């Protein structure tokens, strides 16, 4: 574990990540974009019938109370969890090593853990126009009643698979495959130009 911290992780966004104000920014930025770096990103899969015990495992290992129900999720203390598919959950944490923690304590009879800490990149969009910009790219309803805070959605923009969690009223975390992250980032910046965006 310890050895990992000595080497800096290289973000796939590195060469195209340009902090500052861009696009139509006469009246300030309509959205703020940033990479939400998490030390741990993992997928938990419960065997059929074991979902409740998996939710309990998430509570005990990650200290997150994931609501039972399709797409239910929670954001708390730098950690997040949400349902992405029947019996499947994405869990993230700022610190590294969460996958190992689950691997150590999750009973094989309940389900399994897959470490995706390097396989997924999380891009955060927030601001008044976040719903508007995301609606340019994804065919899902981003309005608050349809997509409550904490909830997660699995969806796709053409070739780019995405899991999206609403982290606040006007803030969303978008999990994309690392190899697509740069293309998606550029697309998101392009789509945000109309409302003006700030990269943090």
């Amino acid at each position, binding site marked *: 574990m310890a050895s990992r911290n000595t080497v800096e992780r290289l973000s796939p966004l590195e060469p195209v990540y340009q902090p500052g104000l861009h696009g139509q920014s006469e009246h300030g930025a309509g959205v703020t974009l940033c990479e939400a770096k998490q030390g741990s990103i993992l997928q938990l899969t419960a065997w059929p019938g074991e979902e409740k015990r998996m939710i309990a495992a998430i509570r005990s290992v990650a200290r997150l109370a994931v609501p039972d129900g399709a797409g239910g999720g929670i954001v708390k203390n730098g950690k997040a969890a949400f349902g992405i598919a029947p019996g499947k959950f994405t869990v993230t944490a700022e610190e590294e090593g969460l996958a190992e923690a689950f691997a150590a304590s999750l009973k094989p009879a309940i389900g399994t853990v897959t470490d995706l800490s390097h396989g997924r990149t999380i891009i955060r969009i927030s601001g008044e126009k976040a719903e508007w910009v995301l609606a340019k790219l994804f065919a*899902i309803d981003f309005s608050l009643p349809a997509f409550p805070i904490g909830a997660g959605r699995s969806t*796709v923009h053409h070739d780019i698979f995405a899991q999206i969690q609403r982290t606040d009223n006007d803030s969303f975390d978008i999990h994309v495959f690392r190899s697509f992250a740069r293309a998606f980032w550029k697309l998101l910046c392009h789509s945000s130009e109309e409302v003006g965006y700030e990269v943090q």
Partner: protein
Amino acid sequence: MLITCPYCGPRDLSEFTYQGDGNRTRPAPASQDLDAWNAYVYDRLNPAGDHNEIWQHSGGCRSHLRVVRNTLTHEISSVGFVRGDAHARKPGARK
């Protein structure tokens, strides 16, 4: 076309992959009944009207869904998980 995924709720056609006729039965793995295998692999019901078919929500939760859809109108009358209802949740239900 919108398909109401039992997990994800109503989603656009573009999120789904069609897997065809849902009435086919795969022979037992060790079966040597070649006719049965051929029928399973190649022959399809192709009704003009309600059709029992399989879709994967490949651009969403990736579950396989059993959909009854009218091939004349594209109206969908039922959607469920192929795996049965073990995973079923009310669409969009939270808390």
